[in-house]
């Protein structure tokens, strides 16, 4: 049994003659230990004090969606037995260079507290946080049972930090390094796993740039018999993938390296290796693709449920050929090089598809307009009626097309449409795209996340406020005509948690329309809108439990150029840099 902290006797409430018979706390804790869902745990903790205590002692995993909403001290005080922490730091628009580099969200202060109070910490999953090499080394040395590290969209560390992890974490099962802004000083870190180290189950270094010693990788894969996820970087070629697959035929997820350079006889061997991978359900990578070699994948295609081709420049016919083998696909990520014809193939080959993401191969190209259009979108919706998650980057759209898409696929939970020219109208009628998003919110009752784009007036927002009753996350850019737009959403969407707005004409009236709303939300972001410093000060004054932070551009006078508002039980930030004004 895990060594867990035991409560003091004075907190125990055993049978008491004045109380109705109740379970001893240890039994309650055992019962609660099967509760995995955060919402369930939250509900349970509100029933009564006894249950609150039982829940907090039995909780092993905690998720913190905004690292500044709570402090590490408060966290450890409430939950003494945590094994797994998930933390998200910077506002999402920091992914798009809208947040200055030294904004904050440094993990170190958390690690200091964890080292003292959670010595048995096993998992740390971070998104948009600053992580330094020093922190990684501290982590590696402070938690002897540490098992899983996942870093997504983080920055501040280098491969030296990974060396520390590989060297000191004897029980590591997961090392997942995804799309971070890091200093890649070389691939030696991989060779730092000792020869006695055998516990790895997940290894993802796909986004690192430098070469690892293939020999060390091969031996690592060979001795880690439980390895199920392996995603290598672009320095690994197909011939090497073949060797790795032969050592690990039980892989469930594979990220290939560069899809290049195979001699004819090696092709056949690789195809055989793929056919032996009966559990393989996810393939990604395919950097620097030579589509000539795609047929080696065919034996594995029938079992694939997730195919990430978002770094592979595939043409329509190449995709069509590949997908004709992938009838079981549930999730597909592609580049818009596949064009509408490629998406037609998606519609006809993958009837079980639930998620589609189409990324732009050349987002800043104004001259040669390529990519996908509304017709590809409609084609997919015709063939894939179970589609519920879409992220679609395109250069033209129409109201009619979107209405058709949601008519075909009414179960959307996530609808993220990015028309890449800001404020672009319906290309056929030249009208705003209000009706498009109107159709989305009217038809898709389960909609949780919506990202809107194109030419939009307040009407679009009225629709959202009126119909999107399950909406939790809304992203707005270059849209709306007046405060009424934002007000409609604030008023009408009861489940709204995150609202992020840029370059839209919403000002103080909208900001101050319903102050209490922000306490039921995780956060509000408004940049390049019309709010002023005074409006923000009013908000800060009237709502002391919110953190109201502003970053101003040079010479912008009274404008509050970047506003970030969030609820917090930890009070104002103590680590805010000078350019973040806490009001």
């Amino acid at each position, binding site marked *: 049994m895990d060594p867990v902290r035991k409560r003091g006797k004075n907190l125990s409430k055993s049978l008491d003659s004045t109380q109705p018979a109740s379970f001893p706390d240890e039994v309650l804790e055992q019962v609660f230990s099967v509760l995995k869902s955060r919402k369930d745990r939250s509900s349970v903790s509100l029933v009564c004090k006894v249950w609150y205590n039982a829940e907090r002692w039995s909780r092993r995993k905690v998720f913190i969606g905004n690292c500044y909403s709570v402090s590490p001290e408060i966290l450890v005080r409430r939950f003494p037995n945590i094994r797994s922490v998930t933390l998200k730091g910077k506002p999402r*628009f920091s*992914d*798009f*260079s809208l947040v200055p580099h030294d904004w904050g969200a440094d993990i170190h202060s958390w690690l200091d507290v964890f080292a003292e109070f959670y010595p048995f910490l096993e998992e740390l999953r971070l998104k948009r946080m600053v992580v330094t090499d020093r922190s990684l080394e501290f982590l590696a040395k402070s938690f002897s049972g540490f098992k899983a590290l996942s870093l997504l969209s983080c920055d501040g560390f280098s491969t030296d930090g990974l060396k520390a992890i590989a060297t000191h974490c004897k029980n590591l099962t997961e090392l997942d390094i995804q*799309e*971070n*802004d890091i200093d890649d000083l070389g691939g030696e870190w991989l060779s730092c796993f000792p020869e006695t180290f055998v516990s790895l189950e997940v290894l993802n270094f796909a*986004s690192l740039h430098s070469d690892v010693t293939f020999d060390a990788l091969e031996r690592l894969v060979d001795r880690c018999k439980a390895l199920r996820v392996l995603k290598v970087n672009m320095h690994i070629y197909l011939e090497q993938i073949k060797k790795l697959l032969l050592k690990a035929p039980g892989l469930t997820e594979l990220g290939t390296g560069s899809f*290049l*350079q*195979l001699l*004819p006889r090696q092709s056949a061997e690789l195809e055989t290796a793929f056919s032996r991978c009966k559990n393989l359900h996810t393939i990604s990578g395919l950097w620097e693709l*030579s589509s*000539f*070699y795609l047929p080696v994948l065919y034996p594995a295609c029938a079992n694939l449920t997730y195919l990430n081709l*978002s770094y592979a*420049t595939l*043409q329509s016919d190449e995709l069509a050929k590949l997908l004709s083998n992938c009838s079981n696909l549930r999730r597909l990520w592609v580049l818009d*090089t596949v064009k509408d014809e490629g998406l037609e193939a998606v519609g006809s080959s993958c009837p079980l598809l639930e998620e589609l993401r189409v*990324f*732009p*191969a*050349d*987002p800043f190209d*104004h*001259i*040669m*307009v390529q990519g996908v259009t509304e017709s590809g979108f409609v084609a997919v919706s015709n063939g894939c009626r179970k589609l519920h998650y879409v992220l679609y*980057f395109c*250069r033209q759209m129409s109201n*009619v097309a979107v209405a058709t898409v949601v008519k075909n696929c009414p179960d959307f939970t996530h609808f993220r449409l*990015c028309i890449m*020219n*800001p*404020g*672009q109208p319906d*290309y*056929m*009628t*030249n*009208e*705003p795209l209000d009706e498009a998003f109107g159709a989305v919110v009217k038809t898709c009752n389960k909609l949780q996340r919506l990202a809107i784009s194109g*030419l*939009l*007036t*307040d009407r679009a927002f009225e629709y959202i406020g009126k119909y999107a009753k399950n909406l939790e996350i809304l992203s707005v850019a*270059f849209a709306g*005509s*007046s*405060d*009424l737009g934002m007000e409609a959403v604030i008023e009408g969407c009861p489940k709204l948690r995150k609202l992020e707005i*840029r*370059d839209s*004409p919403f*000002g*103080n*009236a909208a900001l101050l329309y319903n102050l209490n709303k922000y306490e039921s939300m995780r956060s509000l972001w408004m940049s390049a809108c*019309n709010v002023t410093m*005074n409006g923000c000060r009013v908000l800060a004054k009237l709502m002391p439990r919110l953190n109201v932070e502003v970053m101003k551009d040079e010479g912008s006078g*009274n404008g509050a150029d970047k506003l970030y508002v969030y609820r917090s039980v930890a009070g104002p930030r103590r680590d805010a840099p000078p350019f973040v004004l806490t009001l």
Partner: protein
Amino acid sequence: MESIRIEETGLNLEATELRLGLPGRDKIEKETISSFNKNKRAAPKSAEDDESKANDDIKHHHHEAAPAAKAQVIGWPPIRSYRKNNFAPKKAEAEYGNYVKVSMDGAPYLRKIDLKVYNGYTDLLKALENMFKLSIGEYSEREGYKGSEHAPTYEDKDGDLMLVGDVPWDMFMSTCKRLRIMKGSEARGLGCAV
């Protein structure tokens, strides 16, 4: 956006002002690019046919009004910096063929072929055999193309004369500058182990 900036204590009349023209129009004319004129479609799709012809006039009018180019907006389109910085797709290659000259010793003129249409070495060699009415035979690592009067060679990026078939197909496709079919004693010299 200046025209609808809100006064700090004012009534914000401009937001409710009745105006002609599409809402947000001012903002659009300052900031957006019109890419309609580059989006000409050869065959407008089905039901929208009639409408699109009628709208062509409107579209055209709007082109004139919009600026020709726009400054790049920070953080737009919303693509993670990792994807932006680490990915440069090869565009041109995808569109055009990979044509190389083919010469045969003794032939009066050269030919040109598109390497992209072939499925690999076997395919390519068969095509060359057909084109020049000769037989090249099978490739072996040790002996080249033995049993044949001819040997397929190519000039690579460095200007060296190489035997076709030694390197992976995709590497060959990207390094091959021109093909040359050698014949007679010269060919035998290339194919034989020294």
